[in-house]
C-alpha cells in the first residue's frame, strides 16, 4: 500500500495530456512519428525524473528513446522493458543528471520518443516523480508535444 504522501504526490504532479487532435494520418496509415516529453519543474532545479506515457489501444509501438534538448538531459533516457511489454501500452522512462551539468529549471524538454503506428493513437502522460537531488522531491508536471510524422 502506498503511503498517503505518495498518493498526494502523484495526484498533484501527475498531469495528463491527450494527443488526439489534428494528427490523424491519411487513411489510417501507420507512420513514424515522435513526441517530445517536457517536465516543468517551475522554479526548482530538475535533476531527475521518472515519467510514464500510456498509448491507448496499442495504437503505436515505441521504436526509439532519445534525450531532450536541455543540456542536462541530452543523452538517451532509460526505459523499463517490463513496463513496455506488460500489454498496457506503457512507456516508462527515467533519467538523472550526471557530471557537473547544472540542473535546469522551468519547462524542460527531457526526452523525445519515437513511435511507429497510428499517429492518432491517444496518449497520456503521468509523472511518477521528480527531484532536485539529495532526496529533495519537487513538484513538477509532465506534458507531451507531438512534433513529426512520416507516412509512406
Amino acid at each position, binding site marked *: 500500500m502506498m503511503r498517503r504522501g505518495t498518493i498526494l504526490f502523484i495526484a498533484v504532479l501527475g498531469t495528463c495530456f491527450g494527443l488526439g487532435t489534428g494528427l490523424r494520418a491519411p487513411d489510417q496509415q*501507420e507512420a513514424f512519428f515522435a513526441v517530445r516529453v517536457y517536465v516543468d519543474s517551475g522554479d526548482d532545479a530538475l*535533476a*531527475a525524473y521518472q515519467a510514464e506515457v500510456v498509448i491507448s489501444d496499442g495504437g503505436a509501438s515505441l*521504436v526509439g528513446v*532519445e534525450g531532450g534538448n536541455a543540456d542536462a538531459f541530452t543523452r538517451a533516457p532509460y526505459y523499463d522493458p517490463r513496463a513496455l511489454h506488460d500489454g498496457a501500452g506503457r512507456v516508462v522512462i*527515467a533519467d*538523472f543528471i550526471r557530471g557537473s551539468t547544472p540542473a535546469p529549471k522551468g519547462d524542460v524538454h527531457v526526452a523525445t520518443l519515437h513511435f511507429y503506428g497510428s499517429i492518432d493513437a491517444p496518449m497520456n502522460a503521468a509523472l511518477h*516523480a521528480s527531484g532536485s537531488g539529495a532526496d529533495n522531491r519537487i513538484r513538477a508536471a509532465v506534458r507531451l508535444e507531438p512534433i513529426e510524422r512520416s507516412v*509512406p
Partner: protein
Amino acid sequence: MIGRTIFLLVSIGVIGIVAVGCENSARRVASADSSQQGDGISVPSQLGNPPIRLSYGDDAIGNVDAPADGSPGAGAPSPVSLSLAVNPGEELWVIAKAGRRATSLANDDTPGSGSLVTTLPGETEHVPVPLEHTSVDGNVSGYVASVNVKQRFYNPYDQKIEAVYVFPLPQNAAVNSFVMTVGDRTIRGVIREREEAEQIYEQARSMGHVASLMTQERPNVFTQNVANIEPGKAIEVDITYFNTLAYSDGWFEFVFPMVVGPRFNPPSVGREGIGAVGRSGIGASGQGTEVAYLKPTERSGHDISLSVLVDPGVEIEEMRSTTHTINTSRESGTARKVELQSKATIPNKDFVLRYRVASDRVKRGIVVQPDSDGAGGYFTMMLVPPRTLEHVERAPVEFVFVLDCSGSMNGEPLDIAKQAVDKALGRMLPIDTFQIIRFSSNTSALGRRPLEATPENLARGRRYLQGLDSGGGTMMIEGIKAALDFPHDRSRQRYVTFLTDGYIGNEDEILQAVHRKLGDARVFSFGIGSSPNRFLMDRMAKAGRGAVAYVGLDDRADEIMGVFFDRVSHPALTDLEADWGALGSVEAYPASVPDLFVGRPVVITGRFDGTLSGLRDRPVRVTGRLPNYGEVALTPAASMALSSGGLDAVWARMKIESIQQEARSERWSDRRTAKAVRPVALEHGLMSAYTSFLAVDSLSKTEGGYGVTVTVPVPTPEGVRYSTSVASD
C-alpha cells in the same frame, strides 16, 4: 551540489530508483570508500554512479553483518545511500545504464566510386567497407564482466547504403542495451519481438529513416543492419552485454571474439545455417545468414581497439594474453587496465586474457544483487570441487578421441589437435582403453573397437594420428555417432573428447545428438584455433556433462591436454544438490548442474526471494556424490560481495539458455520454444533468438530509396585457410 542520492520514485504500478549524482562526487566517494576498506570487490553500478564497493572480507558469511532488512552493505559501508523505503507489494525497477554496440556486413557489389584506394603490385588489396572501427571497453569486477562495444559505420560511397554485418559475441553474453548515434543525437534502441522489429525496420528503411536492427542468429552470432547511411555520413551503434568469466585450473578467462569462423552447413541444415562465401559470392550459400570473407590478399579498413579494466577485488598474481600483445597498467587498488598494444588491430582472432589471483576469495564468494526492497534478488556463485577430490584416484577409462579433419582444420589447427591427442596417449594408464576417430565428409577410426593402452597399441595409435590429413566438409554428426553409438564397455567410464574448430551451421542437430546418445558417457570438447565456435564447444560439454577447453594457435596443446588429464585423473562429483538456506526459494541456472571435476568450478546464477541477513545462521550448502565414496559436502561460500547491476541480465540469459537446452533435448517446436523464451527476454530487455533491438530516427528522413545493401566482409580467422574453408566465388 547534487548529492549522491538515490531517489525513490513512486507511481501507480512502478517504483523507480533514480540515482542523482554527479561524476565528481562519484569519484570522491569511490576514493573515500577504497581508503576505508581492505579486500573488496568493486562492481560497477548500472546507474552510472561509482562502483559500489563491498567487502568480500576475511569473514565467512556467517560473520558478515548484514543489515536486518537484508539491504546491501553486508560487512562494509556502501558509498551510495540507498533509500529503500519501499512499501509491500510495490514494484521496483532500477534504471540500467546505457549500452553500446553494433555491426554490419558488406558485399562486393560496392556502390559508387567513393573509395580512395590504391593498390600496387604485390601489395594487399584494400577493400572499402562501411564498418570503420570497433572499440571494446570492458569492465570486470570479480568474475562478472560488463562490456560496451561501439561500432562506427561510415559510408565511403557516393550513394546511400544499408550496411549489414555478421559478428560474434561471447556465447553467454546477456545483451541488454543498444544505442544508435546519428550525428550528435543518441537514440536508445528498444527490445521488440523479432518479427515485429524486422517488419518495422523494413518499413523505416523503405521510408528513408535512419534505423538499425540487431538480431541474434546463434547465441554467439549476431547480425547488425544499419539503414539509410548517406554518403559521407557516419552512424555509431553501441551495445552493452554482461557475462560471467570462465574459470578453470586457477585462471580466470576474459574472451572477446572478433570474427565468425567459416561454417560448413550439411544438407540437413536447410536455410538455417550460416553461409561462408567470398566477397563476390554473396547469396551463393543459400543460407539465411551469410558471412563474406576477404581473400588472403585483401584487407579492409576495419580495425578494432580493446580495453579492459579488471578488478577481481584481490591482488592479481599473473596476467597474460596468448593471443594478442597487450599493455597493462596498475589502476587504483587491485585493478589493472589492459589494452591492446595496437589501437588498430585486425579483428581476425579471439582476444583471450587470462589472470590468476592471489587468493581463493573471489571464487569462493557469493556475489549478490539484492532487489531494491531488500527482499530477494539475484546471486552468482562458484561451486568449487573439494580438495579431497584430488586425493582420490580414478577408475579405468575408455578414451575416445574424435578429430575434426575437415577443410577448415587444414594446417596448424589439425597439427595442434594431433599434438594434444599425442600427449593424451602418453598419459594413459594400462587399465585404460582408447579409440581415435576422424571425421570430415565421412568417418573412419583407428580400429573397430577401443584398444587397450599397451605400448604397442599406443604406438599404433600415434602412427594413425600422424597419417591423418584434412579436407572436405564437416559432418560432425557422423563423428558423434561413431563416438557414442558403439557398445559401451561397462567396466570403464567413457570419456569422449572432440577436437574441432566447431565451424558448422547445424549446432542444434549436433547438440540434440549428444543429448540422445550420451548415456553414461561424458563429452569433453576442445576448441581448436584462433576463433573456435565457442557456443558449440561450450554447449557440447554441458550437454555431455563434461568440460570445455580451448587451444589457441599460440597455446601449448600438450600443456592444455595435460591439464585435462589432471582433471579426469580423479573422479567427478555428481548429483549436486543445494540447500539455499536463507536465500529461500531459488530459481538457479544451469538447472541441471554438471559434474564437478577437479580444478573446474561451475558457476551458478540464481534468483532468490529470501534475505541476506539470515545467511549467518542459514548459509548455502551444496552436496554431491562421489562414486563409491558417498556424499560429499562442498565448502559453503566463504564471503559475500554486492553487485549493483548485471546479475539480473546474466540470470535471465542463463534461463533462456536453459529453456533452449530443454527445447533441444525434448524436440520442442520452434513456436513452443519462442513462447517460452520471449517473455523472459522481453521482461529483462534482453537480446535472444526471438527478440531484437530496434532503433529508428523518426525525425530525419533521407531522400530517395534505401540504396544498396553492403555486406561487411571479414578476414578469415588466423590459421584458417580461405581456400579450404570458404565457398569459391
